[in-house]
């Protein structure tokens, strides 16, 4: 009895002594402290990898931003643009509403970008506090990557939405809800961040980490910084008007000089260069050649089973066939006129514009079949060029090229033209253009052509055109048109040009209205006659004919919604779900 008593009181006493403050503490177990993670390069790399993970989320870059941003332009359009009252079409025709059902979800790219930014903010704070990230160290490289990845997310946010909330520190309860900031402030921060990052990260192939274009290298940071400098000082839609920034730090003089300097650094470094053949470059890309030091500077590094670049933009496959287990592609393509804007000798034309798709397979083998003149496919993305057979039903796994060396050259040309005149720009433009033509054509098409550009304006016009020939299908055009203040002008021109093409008048009067085709010896690829201007003679009985004028007025007018001024709709509205979730802090400008 006594013993029991003692035991009871023992237990009760024990309980009450354990009832001190710390009894109710229950720390997390399957975790590590920030101070440990960011002082160890192996662990810190895992945290920096975490910044990239949101690229692959369902409605992020993977399924929404890459397939939908960048349309429609004077060179590229989404082939569903003519669908009435359709969420996808609205995004393309400058008629997007905040409740767009494709985008208005809480896991949309907008929120994924901020997830990436938050992860970057945590990494940057942690690396600075615990890591001693000096240039030339692994932790230094990681800090540079974190700064650059954050800049990528911000650059794309501002590209699509204009002014956005600025978050450069991890969120706490006080900063959970904030208003939009001026984009000028963010651009300046990004340009400064990339300046710091360029001192931290290595050149391509300088260290093992920069051996592939899936990691951030110095050539990309500098090129990207140049691109942002051009954007920040360019024209764009502010809440009051379409104009350049009034911030003196973002003046054309300062920013173009910065861009030119960065481009020159990259060009002079010898760490990046043009692939000698345009076709080889795109083949290598589809073959997932990610070796650094060539033309590609950085790519969004989708794993093999994730990403919808080819899924969206490739030459369309109607069924599972010899090239792909994923019958997809062809949601967008070049405008019907683009093919005819190229010089017939331009080697980039047939890589960029494809007039066929792969038909329904018979016994697993599919053949090329002509499509209508209104629905060209992009040729830069081709399952048939891949080394890998895609098995996923929803993702192709091919990277998205974020920037390539050709753009560095073109920015250099544009900045040099503005600051020093056409002669200073000429070498850069020649270098790009040279690759577009066979050696025999170069004296006329490259040297004489560029040498003839004697005024600043003529050179700028040539750069704007060259941008089309070089970048159609890479969805770089929309932002470029905006900063040149050409969005509205060129889109309106494009409608006129397409109407002319449809009616075969004006500059398209000599484009044939019938194509003739037969299968080549391999019995799957097409031999087409009638694509070039003036090819009007029936080539013979072994060819079949196809009418080549299926473009309609409805389709032409779907480039952007009739009655809408694209310059008042340069940005998408912030989606309703984010407005609702912002505690009243976020509003849409631009009369949305």
């Amino acid at each position, binding site marked *: 009895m006594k013993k*029991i008593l003692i035991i009871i009181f023992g237990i009760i006493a024990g309980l009450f002594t354990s009832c001190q403050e710390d009894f109710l503490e229950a720390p997390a177990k399957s975790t590590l402290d920030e101070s440990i993670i960011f002082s160890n390069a192996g662990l810190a790399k895992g*945290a920096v990898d975490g910044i990239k993970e949101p690229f692959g989320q369902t409605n992020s870059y993977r399924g929404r931003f890459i397939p939908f941003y960048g349309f429609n332009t004077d060179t590229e359009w989404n082939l569903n643009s003519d669908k009435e*009252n*359709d*969420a996808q079409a609205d995004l393309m025709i400058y008629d997007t509403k905040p409740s767009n059902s494709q985008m208005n979800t*809480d896991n949309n790219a907008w929120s994924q970008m901020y997830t990436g930014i938050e992860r970057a903010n*945590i990494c940057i704070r942690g690396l600075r506090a615990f890591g001693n990230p000096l240039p030339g160290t692994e932790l230094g490289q990681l800090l540079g990557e974190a700064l650059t990845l954050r800049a990528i997310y911000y650059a794309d946010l501002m590209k699509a939405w204009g002014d956005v909330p600025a978050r450069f520190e991890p*969120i706490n309860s006080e900063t959970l809800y904030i208003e939009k900031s001026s984009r000028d402030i963010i651009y300046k921060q990004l340009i400064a961040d990339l300046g710091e990052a360029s001192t931290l990260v290595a050149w391509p192939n300088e260290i093992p980490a920069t051996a592939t274009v899936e990691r951030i290298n110095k050539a990309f940071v500098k090129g990207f910084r140049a691109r942002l400098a051009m954007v920040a000082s360019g024209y764009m839609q502010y809440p009051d008007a379409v104009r350049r920034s009034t911030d003196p730090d973002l003046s054309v003089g300062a920013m173009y000089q910065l861009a030119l300097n960065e481009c020159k650094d990259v060009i002079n470094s010898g760490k990046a260069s043009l692939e000698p053949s345009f076709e080889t470059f795109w083949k290598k890309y589809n073959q997932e050649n990610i070796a650094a030091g060539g033309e590609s500077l950085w790519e969004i*590094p989708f*794993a093999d089973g994730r990403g919808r670049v080819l899924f969206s933009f490739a030459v369309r496959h109607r069924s599972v066939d010899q090239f792909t287990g994923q019958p997809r592609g062809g949601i967008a393509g070049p405008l019907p006129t683009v093919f005819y804007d190229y010089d017939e000798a331009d080697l980039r034309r047939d890589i960029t514009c494809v007039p066929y798709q792969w038909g329904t397979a018979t016994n697993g083998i599919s053949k090329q079949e002509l499509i209508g003149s209104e629905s060209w496919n992009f040729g830069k993305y081709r399952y048939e060029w891949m080394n890998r057979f895609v098995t996923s039903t929803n993702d192709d796994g091919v990277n998205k090229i974020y920037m390539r060396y050709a753009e560095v050259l073109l920015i250099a040309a544009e900045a040099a033209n503005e600051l020093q005149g056409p002669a200073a720009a000429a070498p850069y433009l020649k270098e790009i253009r040279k690759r577009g033509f066979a050696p025999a054509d170069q004296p006329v098409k490259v040297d004489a052509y560029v040498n003839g550009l004697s005024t600043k304006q003529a050179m700028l016009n040539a750069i704007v055109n060259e941008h089309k020939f070089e970048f159609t299908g890479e969805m770089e055009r929309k932002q470029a048109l905006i900063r040149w203040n050409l969005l509205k002008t060129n889109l309106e021109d494009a409608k006129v040009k397409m109407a002319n093409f449809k009616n075969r008048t004006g500059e398209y009067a000599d484009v044939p209205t019938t194509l003739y085709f037969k299968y080549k010896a391999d019995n799957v690829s097409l031999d087409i006659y009638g694509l070039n201007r003036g090819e009007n003679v029936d080539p013979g009985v072994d060819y079949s004919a196809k009418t080549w004028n299926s473009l309609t007025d409805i389709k032409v007018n779907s480039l952007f919604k009739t009655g809408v001024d694209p310059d008042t709709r340069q940005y998408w509205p912030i989606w309703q779900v984010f407005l609702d979730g912002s505690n009243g802090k976020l509003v849409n400008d631009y009369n949305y």
Partner: protein
Amino acid sequence: MTNHSLFDYFFSYLKLGEKIFAHIKKAFLPFVIAMLFLGANNIYAQNKTISGTVTDGDLSGPLPGATVLVKGTTNGASTDFDGKFTLNSVNPNSTLVISYIGYITQELNIAGKSNINVVLKPDMAALDEVIVIGYGTSRKSDLTGSVVSIGGDDLKKQSISSVAEALTGRLAGVQVTSSEGSPDAEVSIRIRGGGSLTQDSSPLIIVDGFPVNSMSDVTPSDIENITVLKDASSTAIYGSRGANGVVIITTRSGKDGKISASFNMFYGAKKIANTIDVLEPDDFVKWQYEYALLRDRLDTYQNIFGLYQDVDQYNGLKGNNWQKQIYGQMGEVQSRDLAVRGGSDKINFNFNYAHYDEKTIMIGSDFKRDNLSLSLKSKASEKVDLTFTFRYSDTEINGGGANEQNEVSSADARLRHSVGYSPIPLPGLTTDDTDEALSSYLVNPFVAVADNQRKQLRKNYNVLGSFGWEIIDNLQFKMDLGLDNRNDLDYRFYGRSTYYASNRPAAENQGLPSILISDEKRERFRNANTLNYDFKNLFGKEDVHSLKLLLGEEMIISKTNEIATEIQGLPKFFDFDTSRNLTSQGVPQSVDNFYSPDDKLLSFFGRVNYDYKNRYLLTATYRADGSSKFLGDNQWGYFPSAAVAWKISEEDFLKDASWINTLKLRLSYGEAGNNNIPSGQTVQNFQSRNTTYINGVNNYWAASNTLANPDLKWETTVTQNVGLDFDLFKGRISGSIEAYKNLTSDLLINFPVPGTGYSTQYRNMGETQNTGIEASLSIAAIQKADYGLNFSFNVGFNKNNVNSLGLLEDFGANTNWASSQIGNDYIVNVGQPLGIMYGYQSDGRYEVSDFDFNALTGAYTLKTGVVNNSGIVGVPRPGNMKLKDITGDGVVDVNDNTVIGNVNPKHSGGMTINANAYGFDLSAAFNWSVGNDVYNANKIEFTTSNNNGQYRNLSTIMADGNRWTNLDVATGALVTDPTQLAALNANTTMWSPYSTNFVFSDWAVEDGSFLRLNTLTLGYSAPEDITSKIGLSKLRLYVTANNVFIITNYSGLDPEVSTRRKTPLTPGVDYSPFPRSRSVVMGLNLNF
């Protein structure tokens, strides 16, 4: 909808009966026969006549209607109006049994007597059962709070597989709904509607004082009684987590006296209740042809079905009934349990073993459970009581069911394959080869089942001990110690045809089988110490005041560890079993050994019970809870409550009203807390995770997607309750009526913070309210020695309302069954209840007259003023589904979504009828729900042919003649001429199945009101004089039919359904449920 009525199956049950009889025959036939002989063997000799009077010991008058029975026989009589009786042919040495409801039964030997006078005394105890309440017991008449209970006898009379099933429709204000028809289907228990918004509103479940996660681990036959505490004055003693009510289960314990044993068994058969009727093969082919024409891809028809001219080859073909093949198995249930109890006043014991085994109606699906329990009670000395209980349960569930909550994609839901799969073999499209997964999105229903296999193994053991000590007179100390250990092992297989297999793994492992293994271990330790003091000595013997005091302290620590393993890229010919046993053949994508932060709770509580003259009762409770889920000052929550009751029947002015036994008015107010969120939400931590999204990155560190909130605190529910209990005519009529208002504030909401970098954050915000009225009534209509009839009836009206959402006005929730084709289809609005369906209003279909026809181009353009819904259904054409334009802008888009349904019933309840006569007993339990809407997603899916819908079959709602058609059968061409098209569809009623998207409109919202005869049991107990001769104290045989019939206007499989349960925001969705079955069960109860 085919209704396989019970009668259809009676014939098949006859066959089954033979099978069962064969089972029983072996063991029991000998004494069944013996029993019959014995029954006929009554000998009568030299009998006499006896008469007498029965008087009421309470009122000293004659007692009419009392039963007088010669013991061991059926010879008996009732007393007349003067309390007199006469019995003939009575053995002079026999014993009379005199009984009357509400009075103590008397036995009297009549040797040497011919006239007897008997005084029956009222049995207060029988009218006043003892109810288990928090940390103690109370006489029913002394209760001040809102408490309902059900005894084990009600549970034992029928065959039930789980405790929750037995509660269905039995208790007022306790709504028990099973989500679908599978044996492990989640059962939702809501006490007065439940208050939480995004968190689970399930009540706290206490088994023998120990909080458990699920009541499914307790055997129904081992239960003494179940008590449900509904208002805060009763639950406040549980403080934390009592906010959604408390269910207290007490298991049986040994009884003093001789050792007794009981054995129960049942065996039964199950059959699918309903199926979805689908198109006949020729109609299926005809629609496929029209679909191909509408999509302008005629080749896709011709490749599979041939030329249209040859379409008559499909006429009259008999299609496969896939649903019957997958879900039409004859299910079998078997149950056996054995209990041995007994002991002396020093020590007694209760041992129980139960085995339950079910083979379900779905192929490859079964359920097994074994329970073992032993409890010991010992009176170590005059002052010391010791108890010890050990419980073990082991459950094995095989089969993937028809859907799942943590699904990768609704594309893998199983019912849809058995409905939508082509009814006829189509070369190139349908094969039994798993490889078809690679060539087509049609998945053979058998392949779908084989590729979505699952095995769950649950083991749970629970050890409880207590030490009670009467330190001084009337001061009782009690210490409880308990340890609960639970292990859930879950294998989920994804075969080659699944969405998971083709999309989730890294590219090199795509299209190969994968297996996910989750091994979760939970450990919970509890210690509670209480002191009870009864002040009766202090007040002397006057019996005017009574005061009792309870003081206590409690501590609960829970630890959880889960190892989640994903293995991908298993060899392509591996099935579920080989994958489970040979995991090293695959590629481990991720092995996550995750330790959750501990969940600790420390509480102090007290309770005072006071009554004055047994007329005025007061209960006051106070509890303080500290939880490790919160930080600093927020750790502690304080929950007071008070209740008063007035026993009106004890007042002098009612003393003479002999027909009133009890009349009591109760009033209570109290607060209860809730911390039902995952632990570790107050501090932001880094988590290591795996990914297959980024090249060369297999794992990464990142903060959780849920933003930490250091300011979290307790959610509090304030309950106000008023109730009236009555017990009239000596207990013949009893019941209660209650009204309540529950206000839950500081709601713990998993609050969306989209666009900030995190997806959600747990917050305290908003307020919900439940108000309602409940009534229960039981009537002992006939109470005779040989026959009787009881009714009991309960109904609850509950009204739920979201009073506030803090910063928000509303937020939406997505059931996601249609992936991104349907957006938010539920909405939480301030001023409305939870479970509001949100979608379009159907406006029938576009008729030819809605369009202008251009004869030149053949194009139909909408007339001005006719709304355009092209973004939702597709380009408008005659026959397309038409939706209403709510905003009035001429265009139907997401802004035209509106409230179209409410899942909350106006009232729900149940009714039980118990009848017995001459050893036979009959019970029927009904339950109903009135005014609730069901979201019939199946109906949408099986009437829509969207872009992914080619080659899929449709339900007969879209049969030829019902659906809009554009097809000229004679020519095989699409009709464009307006007059011809209108004539073609003069008699059709539905729109065309052809649509760009699945569309959620009020057409798919249906009234889910129903009345179900849940169980019907007929039993026979052999007379005692027969059973005693073969050593039994009781022998009962019974037949139970479950889900006998349902009366409803609902067109789907069953209106009691909820298949999208990942969040509580999307209840009442009927999407790919496991079909319900009907069953007939035969059983046996034996007591030794």
